């Protein structure tokens, strides 16, 4: 599996640390309540197909990426800098 880092180009999967579903970009407000926090921390769509997750280019440029990929085929469909997605 290769991930195309927007800054470094296509790189081996070994260079990246996986953080999980890209929910971290939708952190609820501190007082959003138990339901919102349970959903954020624990509940997942966990799709069999296209998903968006967070990868960290640990052995490269150190950027956090939002990777759109297919969990059934391992195909990487798109990569974006998390900083740009979040802003």
């Amino acid at each position, binding site marked *: 599996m290769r991930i195309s880092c927007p800054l470094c180009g296509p790189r081996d999967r070994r260079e990246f640390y996986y953080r999980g579903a890209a929910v971290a970009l939708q952190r609820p407000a501190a007082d959003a309540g138990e339901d919102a926090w349970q959903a954020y921390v624990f509940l997942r769509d966990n799709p069999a197909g296209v998903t968006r997750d967070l990868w960290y280019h640990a052995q490269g440029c150190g950027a956090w990426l939002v990777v759109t990929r297919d*969990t059934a085929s391992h195909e990487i469909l798109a990569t974006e800098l998390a900083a740009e997605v979040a802003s």
Partner: protein
Amino acid sequence: MRFSGWRILKEGLTGNSGWTPQWRDPEPKEAYDIVIIGGGGHGLSTAYYLAREHGLRNVAVLEKGWIGGGNVGRNTTIVRANYGLPGNSEFYSHSLKLWEGLEQELNYNVMFSQRGVINLYHSDGQRDAFVRRGNAMVNQGDDAILLDRAALRRKLPYLDFDTARFPVLGGLYHPRGGTARHDAVAWGYARGADSRGVDLIQNCEVTGIDIDAGRVTGVQTSRGAIRAGKVGIVVAGRSSQVAAMAGLRLPIESHVLQAFVTEGLKPVIDQVVTFGMGHFYISQSDKGGLVFGGDLDGYASYAQRGNLPLVEHVMEAGMALMPMIGKARVLRSWGGIMDMSPDGSPVIDRTGIEGLYLNCGWCYGGFKAVPASGHCFAHLLATDRPHAAAAGFRLDRFRSGEGIMDEEATGAQHNLH
């Protein structure tokens, strides 16, 4: 048909012409009291114990593929009761006791072999943690023996004890642990359930769950609608998809775990050996193949196959620990979809929708749980009360934070177990 030594002798002398299919291939009925979604180990054992313990026989198991095609036929077959936390301890202890009587109970040779499981330690801190774990196991009524270096050397003389990174200092030995023939476990439970009247319906994918006014009324399938009084979801790696049919979002992420087997060799590895620090474990099957694996690939996946980095890592860890296996040729590798929960422990619970029950979150350790999971899930389905041995496996622990069972103490968070 009962299996016995006599029967084998007779069939051997008469051209093996008297064997009959082990279960029927029935058409689905219009309605059942209970429908189990998923014909893996857990679904089959649930159906078996519903019929056997609770006299509930108007039951169907709906399997989208074939019996044994899921993780129950893909795992590395390790059975153990070496958990350290209340909630898990009593459950896996219960399961090990069921394993010990399983072949007589099912009249089926599941090749359960209590060859012992040895977890290696490499530092004083890890030894202390194993002492604590061993005491928890003994307190639970199971067995654990701490082996120092000399004692371990007598059991596993072939290890490379003096690797620079992880010198082997000893091991925690669990004599009652071991392995079983995974397919036979599925087949034995399938046969036992079928012979008690349960309909095992293969090639039947559940595509929808019917709910009316907060109560489950049946399921939609690739073979038509089936009404049901109660429905149990037992689909391992596919839990999120099937639960979504009922509008539920689960605390589950599906990950791929790979495993490997070599050509058959003469007996060389007598126990199950785990090298946690290297993420490597190994045993030898009765056919002689070295069966081994490591950690998850580490990203959400439904592909049932992994990637090369993990393959390399597992081979390297194996070579570091026991260089003697280097000449064995690997025959096959494969992957299965694991239903990973945030704290690494499972869920056996109601769902908030009346009549709909959930069994999931087995991570990479659900094979050893097959007997007790079915036993406890059947109890919940039949009586609406949790079985004492599985009372901790609540779905709401992630909401309340109460009763989180994080064996590895890494934090109850996705992607850490």
